[in-house]
């Protein structure tokens, strides 16, 4: 019986600049992760980022319906439940983005004709769409690791917002997100920091995109270091 491992990370530089509590481009808000908290799923994780929190459970590799079975690899399914109300088109869209990201990293060919289901439940959501997607990606990755699903890389979600004057803010608060000219969410892998998934809102130029991507790649280092630390802490005692 594995004990719960609760790990927290406070990463960020409080530079004491007037209006914003953090310096430009270098810091993410407080995030925390808890693994193996549910008894039924094969793997589960809860990821808290700022004021957004998502609970993820993974079932798999398990039995698959004959209609959905793929002969040479595992069928991946993602179900995302919002905090309130019934799932709608926005949830379907996010499910597809998360599913395609997971399909790119999970080694499905090792488990043909099986199904791997990732269920995500939004626990708290400050009204931000892009931040929620990044948090869901992180929770899904941690849950897949907890379930022991073979993967070729880990992935993480990073959000950045562009203000009307062009300033880049990583991991924006929901207020900042609403006022921003453009909000970009990226999913990056940890082997070569390649771009796995991108979902954008608003208008931005090519140069700004490259700038955001570079900043996101730098920020993803912090997230991956946090993954490594939390897993080390979990497996070192047992």
């Amino acid at each position: 019986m594995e004990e719960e491992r609760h790990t927290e990370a406070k990463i960020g530089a409080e530079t004491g600049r007037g209006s914003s509590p953090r310096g430009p481009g270098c810091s993410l808000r407080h995030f925390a992760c808890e693994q193996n908290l549910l008894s039924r799923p094969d793997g589960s994780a809860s990821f808290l980022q700022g004021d957004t929190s998502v609970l993820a459970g993974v079932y798999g590799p398990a039995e698959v319906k004959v209609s959905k079975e793929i002969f040479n690899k595992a069928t991946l399914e993602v179900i995302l439940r919002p905090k309130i109300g019934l799932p709608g088109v926005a949830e379907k869209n996010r499910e597809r983005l998360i599913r395609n990201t997971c399909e790119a990293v999970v080694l499905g060919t090792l488990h043909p004709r099986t199904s791997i289901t990732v269920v995500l439940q939004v626990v708290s959501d400050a009204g931000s769409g892009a931040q929620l997607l990044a948090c869901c990606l992180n929770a899904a990755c941690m849950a897949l690791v907890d379930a022991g699903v073979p993967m070729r890389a880990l992935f993480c979600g990073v959000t950045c917002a562009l203000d009307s004057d062009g300033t880049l803010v990583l991991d924006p608060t929901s207020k900042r997100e609403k006022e921003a000219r453009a909000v970009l969410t990226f999913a990056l892998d940890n082997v070569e920091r390649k771009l796995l998934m991108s979902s954008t809102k608003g208008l931005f130029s090519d140069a700004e995109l490259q700038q955001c991507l570079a900043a996101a790649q730098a920020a993803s280092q912090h997230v991956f270091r946090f993954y490594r630390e939390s897993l080390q802490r979990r497996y070192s005692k047992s």
Partner: protein
Amino acid sequence: MSKVRWRNRRAGEERRRRRRAGGKMAAGFKTVEPLEYYRRFLKENCRPDGRELGEFRTTTVNIGSISTADGSALVKLGNTTVICGVKAEFAAPPTDAPDKGYVVPNVDLPPLCSSRFRSGPPGEEAQVASQFIADVIENSQIIQKEDLCISPGKLAWVLYCDLICLDYDGNILDACTFALLAALKNVQLPEVTINGETALAEVNLKKKSYLNIRTHPVATSFAVFDDTLLIVDPTGEEEHLATGTLTIVMDEEGKLCCLHKPGGSGLTGAKLQDCMSRAVTRHKEVKKLMDEVIKSIKPK
């Protein structure tokens, strides 16, 4: 015809002749090992239909074909056919934005276009495409919603844009974006005045005006193969074999309205840069085509 275009045409014909010579054996190999069959072509830097890796299929557009709609356009990208019809109706503006109208897009993938779609509620692909078009409209500000308001707080236009796919052969997002843009350019709204005494709307069908289209977003889709190769405008088979897709929506100033990469193999920043430059050239091609078509329409 310019020399370069003549040479490319000959090269395309050569490849097509070589492919036809393969004949029965090639068809068998294609069924058994589709990915290997495809890789043989990619090694020669071309594709089974004779196109280069960066070449689009022939694009044709027909504007104003539906007379009962306020604006319509039919776009054919190779075999992929999408028709867009725009209907304008009255509605009360939203309470939190009393000076704005609505633009409501809906993408329908009926069982007619491909055997993989069944009748019934919209499947995932149709919902994702609808969401994508809604995002493009929202992000690119193609129409200022304030232009659709007739009387603040009381009456506004709502434009229902219905996109129906008639033939699905890959690259549905590019075709839908182009069809939507062409149809919106074709929309003519009648003049509406509010009668001061009766407070009813009076529609003058004789006086119609075109919509004010502020930007021209054009979508360019790519498919990623074997984590390294990028090909433009994938067909249905290519999409099935691809390990990832990427769609870039760009407007005329080079600003991006949407970078849609729903998972799939990773891409480096340098590869993204190449895609951007291809998207810029595609924008010019599409803009030129549309301007020609609009000019050729006789005014109603």
